[in-house]
Structure formats: C-alpha cells, structure tokens
C-alpha cells in the first residue's frame, strides 16, 4: 500500500507540474500579446495543461476520490488553454452564427464593404 502511494505521488506531481507550466505559459502568452499589441502572436497550448492537471489530480493520493473529482474544474479553468479557451470558442461560434455583421469592426474582411 505504501509503495503504491509513493508511486502515485511520483506520477501525480510531474503531471501537476506540467499543468502548472502550461497554465503559466498560456497566461504569459496572453500578457505578451496584450503588451506587444500584435494581432497575431503565440497561440495558447490547448488541452495539454488541463488534461495533465486532471490526471494528476485523479492520481494524487490525497483527499477522497469524490472530493478530487469535485476539484477537477480547478486545473481545467485555471489553464487558459483549456476550459476558458474552448468556452470562448463556443461563445464566438454562437455569436458568429447569430450575427450576420459579426465582423463589423474588421471591415477589411467584409465582402462588398460595410453597409
């Protein structure tokens, strides 16, 4: 039992460190894009961080399993490349479908010019 716990720590900690790394990197990328003001800049690393965090949390020999499951939102939402990225994509897709003039602020793209 003791060996298994050590093994779980050994697997979970690197996974949580991966999550931390990508969460920090994605945050750094966001700030860099705002600071430099580039319309194109580093893309967030999606999924990887959140997934590693969830796995790490599930393997971690700490708290009851149900409690750890209840905490799964933490790695998913604290990594900008995971839940926040996909939720913003979903919102964008819905907005784009609902709004014919979705790109009013980007007239370069609108066929036939602005009306």
């Amino acid at each position, binding site marked *: 039992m003791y060996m298994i716990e050590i093994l779980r720590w050994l697997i979970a900690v690197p996974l949580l460190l991966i999550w931390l790394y990508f969460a920090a990197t994605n945050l750094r990328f966001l700030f860099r894009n705002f600071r430099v003001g580039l319309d*194109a800049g580093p893309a967030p690393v*999606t999924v990887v961080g959140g997934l590693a965090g969830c796995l790490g949390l599930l393997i971690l020999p700490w708290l009851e399993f149900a409690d750890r499951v209840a905490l799964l939102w933490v790695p998913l939402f604290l990594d900008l490349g995971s839940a926040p990225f996909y939720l913003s*994509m979903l919102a*964008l897709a819905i907005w784009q479908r609902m709004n014919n*003039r979705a790109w009013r602020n980007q007239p370069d*793209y609108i*066929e036939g010019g602005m009306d």
Partner: protein
Amino acid sequence: MGFFSGEITGDGYVPSRFHQLIWPKNASGNKVNGVGDTERYRPVQSYHKHHPFYPFGLAEQWFIHKCMYDFRISNWYFKHWITENIKRLGKVAGAKQEDTPENWTKTIKERALADDDIHAVGICRMNPEWVFADREIPRGEWVIMLGRRMDYDEFSKNMKGDFVSQCREVIKSYVKGQETGYRLANWIRKQGYYASFKGGLSDDHLFLVIPAAIEAGLGQLGKHGSMISDELGSSFRLTPILTDMPLIPDKPRDIGVDDFCMSCRLCTRDCPADAISDEKQMVRGDMKWYVDFDKCVPAFNELYACGLCLAVCPWSRPGVAPKLTQKMLQRREKKTAEQ
C-alpha cells in the same frame, strides 16, 4: 460529407458540416488580400493569426487542432514549439567582427548550405512593402532566405489520399528550416550583428516571405500560388532570417515559370477546391497568379494542408526542375531569335 469530414466532388470541395458552421458568413479572404485592387498597398494578414478572434479564427483553430493533436504529426509540432518558445537567441556580441560584404555573403551561404537540411539560399534587401500593414517595419536591412526541399515521396502521398504524410513533411520542413535559422542567426549575433529568424510556423508573422524569396533569386511565383525554384521545384519550404550584417543581394531571376504555367493546367485541374485560376489576377496593384482564398482554405483546413497543387506540379518531381528551366529558357531564346 459528414459532420467532421468534407468531400471532394466533381464541382469542388464540400466542407464538413462542422466547418460550414464555423466558417464566417460575410467575410472574404480574397477581399483582405486585395484581389481586384489596382492600388499598391501593404498586405493585411488574412490567415494563420493563431488566435480565434478574427473572421477565420475558428476555422484556423480547427486546422491547428487537427494537426497538432494528430499523433502522426504532433512530434514535429512539439519540436517547433520548443524552438519557438524555449530556445532563446544569444545576445549580439559587443564587438563587431569586420569583413567585406562579399566575404560575409560567401560565408553565410556556405554555412547555410553546409547544413544537410538547407538546399537553397538567397539574399535580398528588406522591402517595407512586404510587411503586414499592422506591423512595424522589422529591424534588419537584409533578408537571408533559406529553402528546404521536401521529400517528394513523402509529400506526394497526398495524391493517393494520404494527406497526413504530406502535412508531416511540410511541418518537418518548417521545423528543420527553423532549426537552421536558429543556428545561423545565433552565429551572426556572435559576429556582433543583429539577426532574428522566422519559421513558417512562427507565432508572429511579420512579412510576406514569397516576394522576398523571389527578390532573393530563389525562383518565381507559380500558378498554384507557391514558389517554383529552378533547383527545388515546387516542393520546398522557406525560412527567412533578418539581419544587419552587411551583405550582397542576389537578383531576381526569370526561370521560365510564367511561360510554363500559361500552358500547364495540372494544378488547376487537380485542385479539389477548384481554387486555382488559369488567368493571372490583379492583387494589390500587381497582376499575378492568385489562389482563391475562400475556396482553398476550407479544403486546406480539412485535408491537412492539402498540398495537391504542389504534388501534381511537374516541377516538383525530383531532378525535373533544372531540366525544365533549361528547356523553357531555350524555347524562349528560340522564339526571340525567330522574331
């Protein structure tokens, strides 16, 4: 045609239902690219912005996800990420090494071509007209353009329906070019001159690389909208390095591409999206070959960067490009002599 898979039909490419959902209704990449505009102006980046918040952003994210998380490709994507985000270029040395522009040019070319992954190199002066309109003119008076030949056998598997292999070859070529660019830029910095490199997958695109590669004498624009070189044909990828090191520019060269493309219809016929025109078009004040963005990109996204136009191009086949160049130039000379 399924929810996540499109279909190649006789009338062009029908994107998947998912792609149709995320494709913007009123936006046109052709408009951004300035098709039909007779006025000359700096380009606007129409794609590969790497964020979803522009009209084609969702479609681009779909493409990135398809490639990045496909395990047959992702290792190369990962290598690119390391070079882009973890490796850092060294500081520019305090004392400048002095030499003549001729010698620097010779050394740079020898160093670039000594790398097994670089097969062509050209130099040109940076032209602000190539820089995207919303970007500042980057530092570096000179552009060193590196060309890496793709493995034709791998690349041309797309003609048999294996688009993943060609996509892997494209990304691998960009990564290899990027790694050489990194080494060469670092070497230039050690000599006391500013240098930075951009790979094809770079996060912040600053300027159009094809006009720079044409100016650097690497080749000409083909009907399929990509470069054709007399050494590497159509199947190669570019990596630019910007530097202040004094260099001697190469000259643009006519290798007979226009004459050839006027009569060849292979890419036009085989393009699954029917996006390639037989006529040159006016794009931001220049008559040139142009691929219809709005038709090409859905197929590009869903067919792992497609690349069929490059694979079917006769110039792409190994060993053909130098012979074709010779043939086209001889034919032209003959024609001129007859007149």
